[in-house]
């Protein structure tokens, strides 16, 4: 019995092995070896489809940090099954395609290593039941996406696109993490299943709404929802297989997955319904609106992906309304929106994957993907054209392709939602079908652009660097398989519905009982209903709009000046944050050592001092003190006077001698305090130090009077006095501390244990012999340093080299 945990780990293991073993595959393309991984995983998972369709789920737990409730728990149910099949299935096709797309001269080991890293991370996201583990995998997908976008890192565009994608998705991920922690605070669990089970207890909690918004932020940034969609078009700098895989079929759907997974938790709340469906609707419109104006085919597909992701997101939002009403015949109707979302999710992966691969073929074979330079390719690239036609028409929502079915269901869902009695204004509900319809018209227009502008019309070989020719068969296999799926799903949609979608519906609506009731029968023809009329309207108006594109396009798109885009907002934000952090950092990291020291001392004063106050640790007891004599007090007074007068010493000799006074007085104290070894050492060291100071003075300039500002002097004074005060307070508190027994009595057996009568010597030379040895090493290193600084000098030539 294989466990799902292994499915996640296998791509990571192979990714880790690749850098070491890729030399063995010099003769063949590395991709053939890598292809095995997703294919095997796909077959393994596909074998579980029947049992998952029967409602079985698989849970495996490896305890990781049980005390913190972090466990590597995997959970395979209908919802994760859809995504896992997409990840491994599309993954296999993309790797097959990439074998012909990328030449062996590229650093393939890196490419496939990142790709497998992504695959493992993405499987981890959809299979993890533990939120913390899910979060780690979630960020790993961002990291691998960053690496893949920047695969051609000699291009500036790639690097900037990668940075943008990383910054936006990771900031969303951090918001999501905070949301997860809030969920844990509310429910006491990191397990999604347990959180879903305890959802009724938390819906009134004060953190419920913040947690929802934060998790949605994570989902929206990842799934490129408005206004975070700006990273996706820039991510198209990645090699086309990556765009097809990460940025249309899988990674951008992680946000969709998250929303679907958390629908049972948050879906019953009205805010969830509004936020998810409105954001989805705006994204749907904005994406399709921007796609029409693009001249780069890949940018067009990027905006179209944004738009389609918005469509799926809004459907999930619309479907969540069913949870507000609980299970009833009416609310089952609303769940069809969620069903349509899952259905369109699969359809989108098939037709958009095919289209991306077609664009990759054009880019690879003809050297351009600019619509203005292409045209009339139909006769010369018949296979590519066929796939492109299938993909575009499916995206436009025409029969006999799978996009037609899910688009119709989408229209139906927006019409149903008008009937829900939650709108304060009755006419407000009309906004859903209207926006959906307008966006679909625009979708139709850009699909026509792909078909007509690129493949029909007059060929323009003079604008191309390479002669027009059909792609090699290897590059065509993957898009053709996807194209066949597009058609196949249209004819047998209920097979998909029953085996794949139905168990997922059960995961999203766990309280609704048998998921068979939630699975509508998908049919292409269901009589003349509003959705059919809407489709016909889309075709008519879309065709008209396409025909007169030249008339309205410059007018409409010239309307918005480019300064007010979210892209320029992002760029300004990035530039100004770099500039401002430079200013701020330069303000305190100003190169003046004195300031740094002040920071350190102030930190010491504030943290230690405030904790001392806060914990009431200060205690003061004079009764345990040893007695003192008059001459001891005199000695203390001498030392204090010497120390203070050091501050006012006019010459450095005076200051050094005063330091000597301190040192010798301490030696006397050592005698008084029964420490003869210390006294001897102190006397010797103090003499040598003083001599050393005097020696150094003959090489150093005379002591100038320091012209410090009064303010600086004042700050220095306050800081110094405060540090002294804190030390006194700590000293007074600690001197009576007797919570632990002293270990010193152990050393009083020094004669028996070490054969030495002088305890101090025995400690240094025997008990802590290693410490003493290392102390000697320190002395030795200091000696080396002193020697080399006096004797060694860089030659003039070396300095010049450094200056260059």
């Amino acid at each position, binding site marked *: 019995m294989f466990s799902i945990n292994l499915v996640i780990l296998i791509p990571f293991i192979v990714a880790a092995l690749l850098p070491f073993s890729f030399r063995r595959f010099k003769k063949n393309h590395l991709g053939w070896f890598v292809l095995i991984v997703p294919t095997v995983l796909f077959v393994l998972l596909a074998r579980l489809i029947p049992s998952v369709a029967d409602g079985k789920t698989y849970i495996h737990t490896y305890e990781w940090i049980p005390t913190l409730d972090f466990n590597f728990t995997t959970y395979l149910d209908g919802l994760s099954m859809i995504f896992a099949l997409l990840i491994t299935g599309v993954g296999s096709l993309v790797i097959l395609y990439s074998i012909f797309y990328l030449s062996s001269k590229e650093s393939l080991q890196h490419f496939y290593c990142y790709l497998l890293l992504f695959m493992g991370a993405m499987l981890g996201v959809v299979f993890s039941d533990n939120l913390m583990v899910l979060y780690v995998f979630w960020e790993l997908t961002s990291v691998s996406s960053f690496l893949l976008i920047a695969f051609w890192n000699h291009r500036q565009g790639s690097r900037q696109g990668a940075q943008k994608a990383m910054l936006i998705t990771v900031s969303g991920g951090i918001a999501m993490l905070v949301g997860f922690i809030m969920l844990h605070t509310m429910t006491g669990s990191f397990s999604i299943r347990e959180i879903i089970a305890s959802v009724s207890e938390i819906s009134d909690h004060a953190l419920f709404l913040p947690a929802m918004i934060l998790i949605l932020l994570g989902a929206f940034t990842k799934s490129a929802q408005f206004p975070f969609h700006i990273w996706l078009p820039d991510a198209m700098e990645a090699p086309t297989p990556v765009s097809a895989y990460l940025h249309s079929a899988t990674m951008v759907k992680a946000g969709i997955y998250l929303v679907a997974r958390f629908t049972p938790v948050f879906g019953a709340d009205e805010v969830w319904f509004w936020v998810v469906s409105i954001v989805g609707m705006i994204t749907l419109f904005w994406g399709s609106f921007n796609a029409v104006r693009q001249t780069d085919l890949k940018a067009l597909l990027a905006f179209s992906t944004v738009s389609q992701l918005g469509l799926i997101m809004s459907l999930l939002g619309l479907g969540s309304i069913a949870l507000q009403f609980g299970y009833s015949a009416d609310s089952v109707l609303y769940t069809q929106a969620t069903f349509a979302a899952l259905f369109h999710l699969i359809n989108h992966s098939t037709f958009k994957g095919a289209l991306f691969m077609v664009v990759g073929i054009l880019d690879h074979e003809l050297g351009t993907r600019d619509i203005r330079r292409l045209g009339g390719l139909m006769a010369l690239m018949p296979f590519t054209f066929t796939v492109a036609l299938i993909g575009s028409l499916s995206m436009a929502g025409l029969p006999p392709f799978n996009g037609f079915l899910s688009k119709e269901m989408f229209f139906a869902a927006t019409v149903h939602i008008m009937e829900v009695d939650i709108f304060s204004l009755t006419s407000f509900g009309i906004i859903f079908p209207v926006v959906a319809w307008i966006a679909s018209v625009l979708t139709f227009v850009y699909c026509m652009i792909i078909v007509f502008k690129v493949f029909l019309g007059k060929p323009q070989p003079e604008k191309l660097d390479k002669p027009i020719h059909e792609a090699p068969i290897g590059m065509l296999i993957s898009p053709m398989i996807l194209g066949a799926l597009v058609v196949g799903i249209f004819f047998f949609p209920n097979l998909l519905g029953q085996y794949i979608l139905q168990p997922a519906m059960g995961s999203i609506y766990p309280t609704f009982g048998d998921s068979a009731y939630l699975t509508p029968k998908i049919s292409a023809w269901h009589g003349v209903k509003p959705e059919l009329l809407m489709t016909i309207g889309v075709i008519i108006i879309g065709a008209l709009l396409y025909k007169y594109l030249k008339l309205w396009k410059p007018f409409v798109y010239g309307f918005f000046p480019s300064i007010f885009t979210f892209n320029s907002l992002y760029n300004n934000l990035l530039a100004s944050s770099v500039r401002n952090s430079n200013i701020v950092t330069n303000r305190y990291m100003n*190169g003046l050592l004195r300031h740094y020291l002040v920071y350190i001392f102030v930190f010491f004063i504030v943290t230690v001092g405030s904790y001392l106050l806060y914990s009431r640790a200060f205690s003061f007891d004079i009764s345990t003190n040893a007695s003192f004599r008059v001459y001891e007090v005199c000695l203390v007074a001498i030392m204090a006077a010497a120390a203070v007068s050091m501050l006012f010493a006019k010459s450095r000799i005076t200051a050094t001698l005063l330091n000597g006074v301190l040192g010798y007085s301490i030696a006397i104290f050592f005698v008084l305090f029964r420490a003869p070894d210390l006294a001897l050492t102190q006397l010797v060291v103090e003499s040598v130090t003083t001599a050393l100071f005097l020696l150094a003075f003959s090489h150093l300039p005379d002591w100038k009077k320091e012209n410090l500002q009064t303010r600086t002097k004042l700050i220095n004074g306050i800081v110094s006095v405060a540090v002294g005060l804190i030390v006194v307070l700590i000293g007074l508190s600690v001197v009576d501390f007797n919570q632990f027994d002293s270990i010193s009595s152990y050393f009083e057996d020094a004669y028996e244990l070490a054969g030495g009568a002088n305890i101090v010597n025995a400690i240094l030379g025997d008990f802590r012999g290693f410490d003493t040895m290392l102390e000697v090493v320190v002395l030795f290193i200091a000696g080396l340093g002193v020697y080399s600084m006096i004797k060694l000098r860089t030659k003039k030539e070396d300095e010049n080299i450094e200056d260059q």
Partner: protein
Amino acid sequence: METLIIMLIGILVAVATYLILSRNIIRIILGTAVFSHAVHLLILTMGGLKQGNVPLLKEANAPYTDALPQALILTAIVISFAVTAFILVLAYRIYQDIGTDDLDELRGAKDE
């Protein structure tokens, strides 16, 4: 006695801090020297003062004063001597190569 010594330590620390905050390298080095004096006294005081006889087993009778702080201080004296010597030579070398003993002038490029 302990309280008195701790007060003295406070004065020494304050003086050392003030010296370390100045611009002249020599003053800073003197500051570190004073600092180490203060710390040595502090360690010794924390072990308790005049609690017994000299920790020489053959020469004196129990109770002995705590020997562990003394061993620590002995190490510390030697290390602080090494450090003082090192930074003194560092100051010498800096003056030789750059021609100043003022830290503000050693700061380097303005807009770094």
